């Protein structure tokens, strides 16, 4: 047989085996050791940490004397030990001050004076001592005061750990001073805690102090206090006063990105890193977006999750996320992130990923994302995907929920209602989508929706009571029956 006949035959045969054209319009970005390189670069710039000089015996006495003096001084006299620690003793005092701070047998006033002196030194090692107390001290007052003094320094590398502490702190007064410290570093991740304290604080003093902190932050930003949280959560977050991150802070950020890697098995550290990074300002979205191209799949996926959780504040990462859609292992997470950050050019790309022929996981994520963009351009793709007779249920549910978010819930309300009572369906997911539909109708003052929402909510158990599985089934059933009765009227009113 002719040799060329073989070759041609093979080519034709293999071409015939192909399933169609390449669905990816662009190649996946080239991957590299982004995190390792960034860390190495920052560590090179930071250099080796300096060794602190030791204290001579007489200097130990001097430091102890300054602590005692500050603890017993008032008014302008207090400036004397503060200036002396800065000008005369310097960072060499950190070790001794740290001993004062950690010694629970000492008088409270002396320990607090040591904390204040550490703050006055405004040194990375002193910040570390204060931070450790904020994280580990059993006494809430100690955590509070250390947060206060740390917040008056320029040691912005503490911000990630302050955010992490805020996540686990239980003492309301400490919330207050953690929030203040974060605001001083131009981080607004503590706004929710401060707003909560301003309205529901334990006493007048707490409420007033929280309100004053919010007022001061708002004045610096040139807005009303009530606008702060909205601005922070929006694409306009950069209109708030922005920090100039130090090398140390950038190093801390990349250490957190490294925490996301496959090498870290325990989710505890991963969860903390995701939480902290997603509560940082818009500059961090720009800083970490290159990690979407890291060789570690865990880093890539969790970075996309961080950007998703940052939401519109991470809008600058839109192009990088769009490129990440070409990475099959990252595409679903990138799609979900694009939905949250609200990058308008993403809609056609998401629509393409929601079409048959794409991986199921990606289609579901893309449909969910199309709803979250809030952009009506996604409607045709969602309608095309919502095919309960032929498409998998979870895909239809993602499309239906997205249609609700784009104010087209009338088209899917009947199907979602059926899901409430189908034992194999995602009843809880359908329930959340239907509640959103009723709520949006109620907000839009559509006829019948206010009463329907009230009846719907009446079928829920008391807030805070965790229902049993049977009670959940009963609730879903009750709500299903309720909507079956109400739907014809609600939908008829819509077409009147």
């Amino acid at each position, binding site marked *: 047989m002719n040799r060329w006949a073989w070759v041609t035959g093979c080519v034709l045969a293999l071409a015939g085996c192909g399933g169609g054209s390449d669905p990816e319009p662009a190649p996946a970005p080239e991957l590299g050791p982004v995190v390792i390189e960034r860390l190495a670069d920052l560590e090179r710039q930071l250099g080796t940490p300096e060794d602190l000089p030791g204290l001579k015996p007489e200097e130990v006495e001097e430091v102890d004397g300054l602590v005692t003096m500050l603890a017993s001084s008032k008014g302008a006299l207090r400036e004397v030990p503060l200036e002396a620690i800065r000008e005369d003793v310097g960072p060499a005092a950190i070790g001794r001050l740290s001993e004062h701070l950690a010694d629970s047998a000492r008088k409270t006033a002396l320990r607090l004076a040591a904390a204040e002196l550490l703050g006055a030194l405004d040194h990375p090692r002193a910040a570390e001592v204060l931070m450790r107390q904020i994280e580990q*001290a059993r006494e809430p007052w100690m955590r509070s005061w250390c947060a206060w003094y740390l917040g008056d320094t320029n040691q912005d590398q503490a911000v990630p750990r302050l955010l992490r*502490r805020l996540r*686990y702190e239980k003492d309301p007064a400490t919330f207050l001073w953690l929030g203040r410290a974060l605001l001083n570093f131009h981080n607004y991740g503590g706004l929710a805690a401060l707003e909560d304290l301003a309205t529901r604080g334990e006493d007048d003093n707490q409420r007033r102090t929280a309100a004053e902190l919010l007022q001061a932050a708002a004045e610096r930003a040139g807005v009303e206090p009530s606008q702060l949280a909205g601005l922070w959560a929006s694409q306009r977050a950069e209109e708030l006063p922005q920090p100039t991150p130090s090398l140390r802070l950038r190093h801390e950020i990349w250490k957190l990105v490294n925490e996301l890697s496959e090498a870290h098995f325990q989710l505890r550290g991963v969860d*903390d890193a995701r939480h902290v990074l997603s509560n940082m300002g818009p500059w961090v979205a720009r800083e970490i977006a290159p990690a979407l191209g890291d060789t570690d799949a865990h880093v890539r996926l969790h970075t996309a999750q961080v950007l998703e959780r940052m939401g519109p504040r991470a809008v600058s990462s839109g192009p990088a996320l769009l490129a990440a859609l070409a990475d099959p292992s990252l595409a679903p997470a990138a*799609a979900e992130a694009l939905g949250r950050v609200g990058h308008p050019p993403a809609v056609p790309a998401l629509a393409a990923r929601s079409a048959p022929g794409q991986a199921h996981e990606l289609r579901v994520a893309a449909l969910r994302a199309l709803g979250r963009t809030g952009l009506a351009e996604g409607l045709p793709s969602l309608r095309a995907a919502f095919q309960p007779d032929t498409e998998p249920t979870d895909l239809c549910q993602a499309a239906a929920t997205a249609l609700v978010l784009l104010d087209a819930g009338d088209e899917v309300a009947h199907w979602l209602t059926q899901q409430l009572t189908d034992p194999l369906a995602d009843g809880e997911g359908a329930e959340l989508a239907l509640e959103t539909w009723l709520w949006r109708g109620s907000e839009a003052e559509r006829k019948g929706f206010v009463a329907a929402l009230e009846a719907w909510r009446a079928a829920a158990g008391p807030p805070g009571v965790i229902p049993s599985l049977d009670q959940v089934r009963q609730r879903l059933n009750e709500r299903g029956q309720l909507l079956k009765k109400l739907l014809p009227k609600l939908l008829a009113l819509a077409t009147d």
Partner: protein
Amino acid sequence: MRIGAGIFVSAMFVWLLVSLLITGGSEASAGPQTWTSSRQCMSCHEEVFAEWQDSWHARSWTDPDVRAPSQSNNFQNKDCIDCHAPRPVFETGVGNRVLPRSSRRSEGVDCIACHLLPNGRMAGTIDNPRAACKPQATVQLQREDYCGVCHNQHKTVDQWRDTAWAERGEGCLHCHMPFRDGDPNRGRHHGMPGGHDLELVASAVTLTAQRDANGVGVRVSNVAAAHSYPTDERSRASDLWWRPLAESGEKLPWRHLHRIRDPYRWEVDVPSTLLMPAEERELRIEGTDSEGSLEVLLVYKLTPFYRDPTTGEPYTLGQVTDPLSDSQEVHRVVVDAGGERK
């Protein structure tokens, strides 16, 4: 003409060869091409599917305790998704942390999450490339590290490694995935009992109480769990309560004696009191009230906090008067005034 025939014959031969290599034969191609739901497994694996559907793996997304505001808050806390709706374990690799998935989340920890291999086949105990799901014998399914991708987040597998069970080679499956009816030929039960199975929980610990000259010594022992009791950070707790038994028969309020629980990460004010494998712990009840008859109660909690059963408001331990309104009884012992245990 001869060249054309050569091309045709070569093409047909290569097509046949490639088809066989890709599909493994025509019978295999009758199965689903993509796996989008564990419901696809139901028709062939009816018994296993029913067991799984009734398991807490299947409910990992719908479990009301997990969806509670204090826990995942309907998964608004997305950190929970990684293990409650994971991508296939074999995609990230045994021993590695799992990653969260976007699709079929309501199916929780499902057939696909545990069995789908990166090559599209299903990990199982036999090799059969001609069956619809092309099972591939995969011994890793039985390894502790396999369960550990999620459960060692709570160090459960690490706790097991230092026990006599590990020395004997009795791993997770021994208790949590036993053979159906004890018969290896019947395969393993996919109900996977754990903390929700009160009988299993009760078999793991013993509770005894004995009067002595100074009061009553209460002993709680982890006798049969090859990991700590309980073995979960934050979400699980077990409490010891006691109360004097009034001669009048009046039910006096319960008093908290001891809490067995791990603190949640940065809970600086909560000590870790997990009862480690084979550990016995003695607690003392002393004072005037301990002189008469009393009863001691060990309860198990799926969420750590006690709440008012009608309003859901959280109680401090000191406010709880009826622990069983928000927990399950594991063991109860009565000690009479003379010291005899009932």
